[in-house]
């Protein structure tokens, strides 16, 4: 049976050289829910989200201590297979970053790397994931055209489809709509509500209303520390911590 919480994080400390970016972070990420991470720039929320699929491994000066349990296993354990981890924990970035390839090739890129060669199965993945991100009807007649010809919002949905194509459990989103217009933003938000029937979503956002609209749980980061984490309703209606209240009401600083 699957555990109720996808991630359970305890005493997470992260240093970039002499600078400590995360201090004693502890949080659980419930399965098939949307968890929003909010906080001012430089507070550690992007650093934190990157610890969840070990993206920080790429930074040489980065040092991580503590427990990051994913489906009951510590992903910072030496035995952890990072490639397998990133297959289960996908990521979508702030700016849409499709490969300079066709729409089709973008989606099948991951599955192919993971060894899928069967054309029918790849076709099936393309159709299913593009439908999951509500892009199928818009691109089904141009699957073999360059992805760079799509609009910004379409590109971002394609990037989400690309992340879904390898069958992840979790999708990490680092400010996925900050480069999009309000209509494209709404489409992504609606999409996320649907996706959490099958996936767990962790989103970093600077848009308070977005966190309030779409997430089930919200964590407020400040100076590398989680100040408060609770249901989104509680955080935005009646936060327990004064610092949280100051931040979400815009009186921060």
């Amino acid at each position, binding site marked *: 049976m699957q555990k109720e919480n996808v991630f359970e994080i305890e005493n997470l400390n992260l240093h970039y050289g002499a600078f400590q970016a995360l201090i004693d972070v502890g949080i659980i990420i419930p399965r098939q829910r949307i968890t929003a991470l909010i906080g001012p720039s430089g507070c550690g929320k992007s650093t934190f989200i990157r610890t969840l699929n070990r993206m920080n491994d790429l930074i040489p000066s980065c040092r991580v201590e503590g427990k990051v349990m994913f489906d009951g296993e510590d992903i910072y354990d030496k035995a952890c297979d990072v490639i397998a981890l990133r297959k289960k924990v996908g990521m979508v970035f702030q700016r849409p970053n499709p490969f300079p390839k066709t729409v089709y090739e973008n989606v099948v890129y991951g599955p192919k790397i993971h060894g899928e060669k069967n054309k029918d199965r790849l076709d099936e993945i393309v159709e299913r994931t593009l439908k999951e991100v509500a892009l199928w009807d818009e691109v089904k007649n141009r699957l073999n055209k360059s992805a760079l010809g799509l609009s910004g919002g379409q590109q971002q949905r394609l990037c989400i489809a690309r992340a879904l194509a390898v069958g992840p459990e979790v999708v990490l989103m680092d400010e996925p709509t900050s480069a999009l217009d309000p209509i494209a933003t709404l489409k992504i938000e609606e999409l996320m509500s649907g996706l959490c029937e099958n996936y767990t979503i962790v989103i970093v956002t600077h848009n*308070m*209303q977005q966190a*309030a609209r779409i997430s089930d749980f919200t964590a407020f980061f400040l100076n590398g520390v989680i100040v408060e984490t609770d249901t989104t309703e509680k955080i*935005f*209606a*009646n*936060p327990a911590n004064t610092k*949280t*209240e100051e931040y*979400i*009401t*815009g*009186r*921060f*600083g």
Partner: protein
Amino acid sequence: MARPILEAELKDIGEGVIAMGALVESTISTAIRTLKERDPDAARALIIEDERIDDMEDEINELCLRFLATQQPVAGDLRYVISIMKIIRDLERIGDHCEDIAKYTLRFEKEECFKELIDIQRMADMASRMVKNAIDAFVHRDLRLARKVWKADEEVDEIFRDLHDELLEFAEKDSKNAKQCIMLLFIAAHLERIADYATNICEEAVFVMEGAIEME
């Protein structure tokens, strides 16, 4: 980073509520004075004055709507504005009760009252003070004062029950008092409702402070 526009709009809304509260509070006293003094002109003036209370409600409502639409408040700011929208409705209803009391004054005009209006005066004084304290509790986020209003409401209810029994007795004893008894009973009932509205305002004060309405 402060939010000067948000703060300024909140201040305007808050000041509007204080002004409306002060007007409503004095209207309660005026209503009972017109009754005791059988002053039909003052009663008519009060009925006209009630329109000002209605206008104030509309104006503050407008400010709150604009604030919600343009500032998108959350947490304490959101609770504050939502509470104010309820409070001004309560204040407006109190104004209506005063207007009804003034209308009874007009019906009493020529008649001598068969009894002195001691309890009614007490109820009116208490209700008026409760409204003032309730607004103060809300504005100054004073939980202790809010509790005091709650307690006072119990007292008003008690006076009302006793007065109710007393007036029934008068009516039974001498049927020519019946008409006045009924009118006084209605007036007392209006005052009792006004006191209830004051406790509603206190509930809002607690809601703004604590995010939940709980009062022992």
